[in-house]
């Protein structure tokens, strides 16, 4: 079936922008419709976050499947899609990860044109600092793996770190900077715009985005999924794809599945806006801490999990103290700046810190989850691979290893070797 053409009249263009600005911006249409749910769909995606919306977009644009609904319990994009630290990168060392994240990064690189939406993808570089010879070897192993697979990576020495990030304290007595692993194609994107861009693109191809529609059950008959029970009634579906991040284990329970996932809190922070100080993304190797500066000027940063299982999206002070200590240790000039706001997201932590995009023992039911800290950068790749898996009922090579079965089979993809301890990942 051919893909339904986009509604070209709504395209954003320089001409359109000028026209609207001269007529009071009255002609803009909603970025996505607010349709009532139909009785049934070919595919229902549960979860209107970045991954769910991207899946719908690629189902429609790549596979021509447009009779699709995305159901979301609240408004779209207010889960982890709207509360992450916006980092995009593919600097993974294990081939199963590198393949997938590099595909995702390539999609990022063309996303504005694909979506006709400026998601502000900005490749200003991601720099992982290291503080000892042994940390350098670990970084080199990862960087060399990337290079062997055709992904960009550079090993920076101290002086090179100083030149790209002059604000960093290189000579801390307990964790001097030995250098850093740089991926220049890494960077950041505007997280909300990614949500809206995918929603708008999917909507334009006919996908129904149904907000305020919470899934309460997954209906099955004879080992096959038949639809979802929702707060707005039953909606039938030939196939159901679940992409609900921190709520993955809850949805799995509805389908009678038990997944190796725990939900943990991860806090994130933004400072008051200041003039440009930090160009790319920098991560600290002596503590779990990362920071970048948004186009608006706010410093966006985060770090460790809160260390206990929770769905609260709040977080507590011990992690705050640790993170701010790391921040000031790495960049002493931050001390007199001010933190403006703090929030937390619910991380679906797996037992090897890698995700899954796969079929399940139930026919027609597919799961996409286990994103741990790293779901945002995966957004287009995750949607693309999930769409492929749902449309073809088999994974693409990019996500073939990202199965739930790997835990049963002992084929974990444990990038950092932290093991089945989410708080240590």
């Amino acid at each position, binding site marked *: 079936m051919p893909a339904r053409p986009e509604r070209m009249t709504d395209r954003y263009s320089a001409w359109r922008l000028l026209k609207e600005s001269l007529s009071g911006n009255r002609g803009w249409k909603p970025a996505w419709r607010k349709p009532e749910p139909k009785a049934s769909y070919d595919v229902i995606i549960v979860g209107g976050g970045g991954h769910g919306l991207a899946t719908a977009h690629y189902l429609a644009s790549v596979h021509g499947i447009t009779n699709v609904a995305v159901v979301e319990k609240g408004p779209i994009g207010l889960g982890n899609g709207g509360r992450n630290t916006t980092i995009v990168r593919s600097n993974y060392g294990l081939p199963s990860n590198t393949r997938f994240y590099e595909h995702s990064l390539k999609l990022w690189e063309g996303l504005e044109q694909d979506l006709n939406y400026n998601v502000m993808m900005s490749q200003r570089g991601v720099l992982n600092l290291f503080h000892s010879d042994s940390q350098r070897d670990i970084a080199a192993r990862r960087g*060399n793996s990337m290079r062997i697979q055709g992904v960009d990576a550079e090993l920076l020495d101290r002086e090179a770190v100083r030149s790209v990030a002059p604000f960093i304290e290189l000579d801390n007595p307990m964790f001097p900077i030995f250098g850093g692993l740089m991926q220049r194609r890494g960077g950041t994107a505007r997280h909300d715009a990614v949500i809206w861009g995918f929603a708008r693109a999917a909507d334009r191809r006919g996908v129904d985005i149904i907000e305020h529609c919470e899934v309460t059950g997954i209906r099955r008959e004879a080992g096959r999924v038949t639809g979802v029970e929702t707060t707005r009634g039953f909606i039938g579906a030939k196939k159901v794809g679940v992409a609900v991040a921190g709520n993955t284990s809850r949805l799995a329970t509805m389908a009678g599945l038990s997944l190796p996932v725990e939900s943990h809190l991860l806090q994130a922070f933004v400072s008051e806006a*200041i003039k440009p100080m930090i160009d790319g993304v920098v991560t600290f190797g002596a503590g779990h801490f990362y920071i970048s500066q948004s186009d608006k000027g706010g410093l966006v940063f985060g770090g460790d999990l809160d260390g206990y299982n929770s769905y609260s999206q709040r977080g507590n002070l011990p992690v705050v103290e640790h993170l701010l200590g790391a921040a000031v240790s790495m960049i002493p000039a931050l*001390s007199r700046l001010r933190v403006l706001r703090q929030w937390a997201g619910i991380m679906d932590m797996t037992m090897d810190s890698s995700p899954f995009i796969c079929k399940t023992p139930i026919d027609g039911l597919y799961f996409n989850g286990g994103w741990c800290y790293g779901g945002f950068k995966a957004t287009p790749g995750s949607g693309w691979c999930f769409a492929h898996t749902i449309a073809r009922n088999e994974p693409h090579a990019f996500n073939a290893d990202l199965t739930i079965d790997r835990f049963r089979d002992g084929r974990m993809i444990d990038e950092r070797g932290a093991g*089945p301890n989410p708080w240590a990942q």
Partner: protein
Amino acid sequence: MTSKRLPSGGLIDRGTTVRFNFDGRSFTGHPGDTLASALLANGVRLVGRSFKYHRPRGIMTAGPEEPNALVELREGARREPNTKATEIELHDGLVSASQNRWPSLAFDLMSINGFAGPAISAGFYYKTFMWPKSFWEKLYEPLIRRAAGLGRAASQPDPDHYEAMHAHCDVLVVGSGAAGLAAARAAGEAGARVIICERDFVPGGGLLLSPADAAWRGDMVNALEAMPNVEILTRTNVFGYYDHNLLGAVERVSDHKAEPDQHEVRQRYRTFRAKQVVLATGASERLIAFPGNDRPGAMMAGAALTYLRRFGVVPGRNAVVFTNNDSAYETALALAEAGSGKVTLVDVRSQSALAAAMTARGIDVRLASEVAYFDGKTALVRRRGGAGGDKFVADLLCPSGGWNPNVQLASQSGAKPRWEATLASHVPGESVQAERSAGATKGIFGIGAAAYDGARAGREAAAAAGFAKAQDFALPERGPAEQPIAPFWEVKASGKSFVDLQHDVTAEDIRLAHREGFSHVEHAKRYTTHGMATDQGKLGSLVGSAILAEARGEPVEAVGVPTHRPYTMPVAFGALAGHASGAHFQPVRRTALNDWHLRNGAVMQPTGAWLRPFFYPKPGETGWEPIFREARAVRSSVGICDVSTLGKIDVQGPDAAAFLDRLYINTFSTLAVGKCRYGVMLREDGIVFDDGTTSRLAEDHFLVTTTTGNAAPVLEHMEFHAQTVWPELDVQFCSVTDQWAQVAVAGPKSRETLAAAVDGLDLSNEVFPFMGVGEGKIAGVPVRLFRISFSGELAYEIAVPSGHAETVWEAILAAGKPFGIVPYGLEAMSLMRVEKGHAAGPELNGQTTAADLGMGRMMKKSGDVIGRVLAGRPGLADPGRPRLVGIRPVDTNKRLRGGAHIVREPGSGTSMGWVSSVTQSIEHACWIGLAMVENGEALKNQRVFAVSPLHDESVEVTITSPHHVDPENLRVRA
């Protein structure tokens, strides 16, 4: 100058003058002033520029909700961008500068953005800057980044210090207005331990604006200060409300001085664990959206009253007060009383019982009217919704859209805000934690009513905390009820009507967001950036929601406001970091021999939390020379090394052996007393967790050693299993890492060295063989001896109570002198470790199995062991997995690199494994390495390539046994 200082009145000390500087100009003010009040007293109207359109802005408020008057405070390393002039206590020598303008505040070139208004409306950037593709990163984004942001960060480290303090109390009262003071007094008199936090530098809140209540305020503060169970903290803002009644605050200890006194901190981070909390944080006045509501001269009515009453400053000459509620009438009266020029009161309500009294004071009252335009010099006042209107000369325009109870902390505590129609605002919802709100925070306005409510809240909080002594103190009179507010949000007239002044979000932007489908309040916020500025929407958040509600055709309460989150006011990074930053980010651990190492020229390096000697260079030695010298000494004679950092866990009890049998893949119950054994421990998922030697000191007494890095995780692992998995086992254990120092004495002459030093133990191979454990004395100090080796040589380790470490170390050095004993550091140890082929941190990296490391046969045949079951999964049992091997370069002049990958041919896109550890070998006179290589066993003696594209290097290597020296293990048994 249109604003000026009154000759009398207010809480400033006119007898003292302080000098300060703004944008290079010198001014004077008085103690008690804020920077904002002093600037106003000097007639300064233009203080800042807005974020997007760079519109000129003045001082809008008198508190933390200030969106406009942000300055860079102080200079050099102490520069603080985005500091609210309304929150800066004036001090002598204060230096401040406006920000986000170029070339100057009065003439800012970026203000041309204002003319592009319609083209750069909310969210315009999502629709453009996409063509051509490459221009985003090269052109558009750099320009945007340069234009965005506000002030500039300091470029040097902060010279000031911060500290943390943690307190428990029965009742924490947040806010010291009428409600807060009364609550604290009631709780204090009831007998509770009370802490009051006040953000301001003077306690009193709204009382500071009421001369009639000054005496009561003074009495209350005096009484509270006299109570031993009550502590008043001023300059202390509570920024967040967390789980289990934990609240975080920052006390600004010395921000009101040019710099802290010697040894004084700048700020103090405080946490309070309170049994009960009373939130008396008052209310914030909200904006009205009308064209020009951002112009210099626009100032909230409550703020104008504050400048008049508290600071003795008349903020303008001819004033228009624009209100929908009674509170602004007091501002109009105060302006008139202060001898302003013409005062006009515009009330959107069609009736007001207070109008006659106003008229009697010469105030021009316009009912059922609205302000349709303000440009800083004139205001257009018209009938509501009408055309035309009257122009008034006005340099001051004071809107009051009503008051929002400050529900932020209650909301953070989990109490969902509830809409209160009579206030047209939210009040705190039902409490979830042990807290209650009082006074204006709860929507109870007026000093008498708030005080009465505060006393109730304080009494209830104390009772809930278990204190109920009778209380006796006077409360102010309760005033008459106010007339109902008329909810009013926006004047519909042409021009830019702002709802977020700092981010330049207009009412039209909110409507545009709705038109484009961003109709949920969180979507509208994110699309327009409304409420995301440094004031977090305190002035205009609800106004934006009301405009959105109108567009949606729904009531305001159906739209709500975005989630309240920390921080109620922005908090300095340094304050939250405290002393636990820089060199003290984590505690530094030093061994008992640290001072000896320092005295003897060791190069100390951090390894994890520990400082360890890397090597002991002699004069003139460079590069690898000291490392080679130390390693050669060990291989040829004898060396001594501080290995105290290894984790040591003492395990005792009748079930100690059974406990260890379940934790290690090999068996300890069969170990003889007086022997030690190497053991490997798995994680639950079958991956190697840790390794080390364990000694049996008695039938029911073991000493476990762990790797340095895993000392704490192994202890946790033991605790977890002892407490939750096998509670039936009778076993106790504790860390003794710090109690025992440990030194390795290694080399062919180690036995002779120790024989000369040790009393009470026969060290002959027959009596004390490899893996033997014994006790003796060195220099009179009882020690434990272990015949174990990491270097691959004949070697011993000696454990000594930490306090005697140096005595024993020196005695061994003396005994080894005839053999040329040398101290050796971590680098020589590591060199010999790689030569010997022992797996260490780089190989025990959380990704390898025992079989991968060549230790698969250690797994006992039967019995339950942590990790056994999952280690049997096909993926982990796969014989093709990377195995530990050795590598040596074919061309012995080539260097190897850790982190290189093993490939069949240079340029191959498929890695067969990686190089985990490398060193220059003294035995082979070339680089050698350890690597994890797929099918490594089968590849022995074959040639492959170790490639490091990061270094643009490719080295042909031969795969060897990992044991580069003494593979038969003869030396250790010698």
